């Protein structure tokens, strides 16, 4: 049993070992090992050219990674916190996402941008946000997130091995949760990076979640089972593209769908997923697709963040509303 954070560390280590072109870069990733220690000891073992402590400027981290990728490297950039990604936003959406398209496929940018995201750790502002929809809206980027240590270990390696630019959201409040990880499992035998996972099979309603909310959805399913309702929980894993076949199959079976995420609901991923389910599964639905999301406010002060974050009760309430339709 290892933590999700440690699983990421092992995955990064293995990527550095397997491919000499992989480099890690970011603020404090070297000697400190990152503020969450995800890159702990990697600079010590791989050197300052492989694990690069950068100046403190996010556009610079991503922009220089673009150049390194053109040069043939596979940079893995760390953005220290979700709310700090915006100075790099231009580089990500205007350059990283488009250079392959712009160059008619001549330029590949196999880079990974790791972003610890989401709330629940009692932080100050800019340290708890869920900006995934901005990136999922941008063609040319792949956007993924993991929810448990085993996936974290596999997916970070897959993201690095992918020729696509990948935004890799790490559920920071799950960094310390433990799970079984097979550190010797070959990457070639793993699920595709864009595939969703049925985290708990069920028959009565489908709860769709990703990243930090998967744990909440699973807890809700456990509680609902005591009331005799079997919820199917799907961990999306990939937010762009979304693995819709898995979702559609589940919703057609259960007839009900509830999307859960921490980000504000307005124009969020829940809206997109609800629309797609409605388009594809309309005749199977027993109730409208419901959303359980953060409110449409800036991420609040830590002492009241629990009121903002979707929790087990709000998910169960949505389940009740779905059945009450």
């Amino acid at each position, binding site marked *: 049993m290892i933590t999700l954070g440690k699983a990421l560390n092992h995955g990064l280590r293995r990527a550095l070992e397997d491919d000499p072109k992989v480099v890690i870069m970011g603020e404090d990733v070297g000697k400190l090992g990152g503020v969450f220690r995800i890159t702990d000891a990697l600079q010590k073992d791989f050197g300052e050219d492989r694990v690069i402590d950068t100046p403190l400027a996010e556009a610079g981290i991503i922009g220089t*990674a673009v150049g390194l990728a053109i040069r*043939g490297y596979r940079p893995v950039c760390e953005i220290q916190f979700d709310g700090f990604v915006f100075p790099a936003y231009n580089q990500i959406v205007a350059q990283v996402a488009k250079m392959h398209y712009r160059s008619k496929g*001549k330029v590949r940018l196999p880079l990974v941008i790791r972003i610890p995201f989401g709330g629940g750790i009692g932080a100050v502002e800019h340290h708890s946000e869920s900006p995934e929809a901005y990136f999922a809206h941008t063609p040319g980027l792949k956007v993924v997130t993991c929810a448990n240590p085993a996936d974290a270990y596999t997916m970070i390696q897959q993201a690095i091995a992918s020729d696509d630019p990948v935004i890799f959201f790490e559920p920071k409040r799950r960094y310390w949760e433990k799970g079984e990880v097979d550190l010797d499992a070959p990457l070639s035998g793993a699920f595709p990076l864009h595939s969703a996972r049925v985290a708990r099979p069920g028959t009565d309603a489908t709860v769709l979640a990703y990243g930090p909310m998967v744990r909440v959805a699973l807890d809700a399913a456990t509680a609902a089972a005591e009331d005799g309702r079997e919820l199917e929980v799907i961990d999306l894993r990939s937010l762009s593209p979304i693995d819709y076949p898995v979702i559609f199959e589940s919703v057609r079976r259960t007839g009900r769908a509830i999307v859960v995420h921490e980000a504000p609901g307005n124009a969020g991923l829940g809206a997109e997923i609800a629309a797609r389910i409605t388009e594809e599964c309309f005749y199977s639905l027993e109730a409208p697709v419901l959303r359980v999301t953060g409110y449409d406010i800036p991420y609040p002060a830590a002492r009241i963040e629990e009121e903002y974050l979707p929790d087990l009760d709000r998910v169960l309430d949505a389940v009740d509303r779905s059945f009450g339709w």
Partner: protein
Amino acid sequence: MAKGESVAGSDIPAGGFVQLLTPDGERVDTVTTADGTTYSVDFTDEEYRGLYRDLVTVRRLDSEAVALQRQGELGIWASLLGQEAAQVGSGRALRPQDMAFPTYREHGVLYCRGIDPIMPFGLFRGVDQGGWDPNEFKFNTYTIVIGSQTLHATGYAMGVTMDGKTGSADGEAVIAYFGDGATSQGEVNESFVWSGVFNAPIVFFCQNNQYAISEPLERQTRVPLYQRAGGYGFPGIRVDGNDVLATYAVTRAALDNARNGQGPTLIEAYTYRMGAHTSSDDPTRYRNGSEVEAWKAKDPISRLKAFLSKQKIAKKDFFAEVDAEANRQALDLRERVLEMPDPQPVTLFDNVYPNGSPEIDAQRTAFAEYQASFEGSAH
């Protein structure tokens, strides 16, 4: 600097610049700057003629592009008129192994990299977004968002160092092109920080053409741009950007320093955009005719022509032959531009991701079926 004194009304900017060929076509043998660096060039007659041919050719191709835009054949064009010497001088100073990161006006550098001059026309005609292979020609795609490419160049240069390709006379170097307006961008400043900190083998080549669309240099800076380099820990130098010999000499020296492991240089090529920013703006709204006339007297081509004539390096028939050949190339280019086919609609979906994406693949399939549904119909 060589022309250290700034005289009101003179054509030399305050602080001077490196100049090896005066507007009247007089050669300055060598220039020694305040830091003791001596700049010169030693060209054969054939090389001098080659530079002249480059200048005339890129100007002629550019004027054809302006005409094509006016005739509605290009959506927009960013003319290089007036900046030929800065681009050809720096472009010819590059060695084959060097990598260049342009903005969107570097048609002259593109030409010097051996890329078919039709390539940028795809972008401006709207049939693609730039289709050359950056790796093959060592010339990256055009970058429209001002200054973004300076960071790409910096990262690439860091990779050169990591590959162990610096520290010798045949090492690799990188050049990043940008304008005076770009120096106000945070990303350009970040690229200076990064390059200084990592001692990257890079030359920052700023073509100060005096205007960012309508905004004059005074809206970008209160100090000469080349002086900024000191704050980042590497040398900055200003060169007469209308002097192809000086831009060549200064760029070559800076590239050699970079390839030898001596880190970055900021070059400010002091020049003037004779035309509009792009074919969409109207420069008569923001600058007066006398200013334009003054710069016309410093024209990069006429001064080299005067020098070649005076030195008897070239005669009338050479100039006539160059003009005729440039004209022929321009007309050939015109024909080829007019023949550029629109892309097949379904190519909309190509190259978003190297290995595709199930969502985009599904959209492509649906699109193709929708298109096919019109076949044989009245549409």
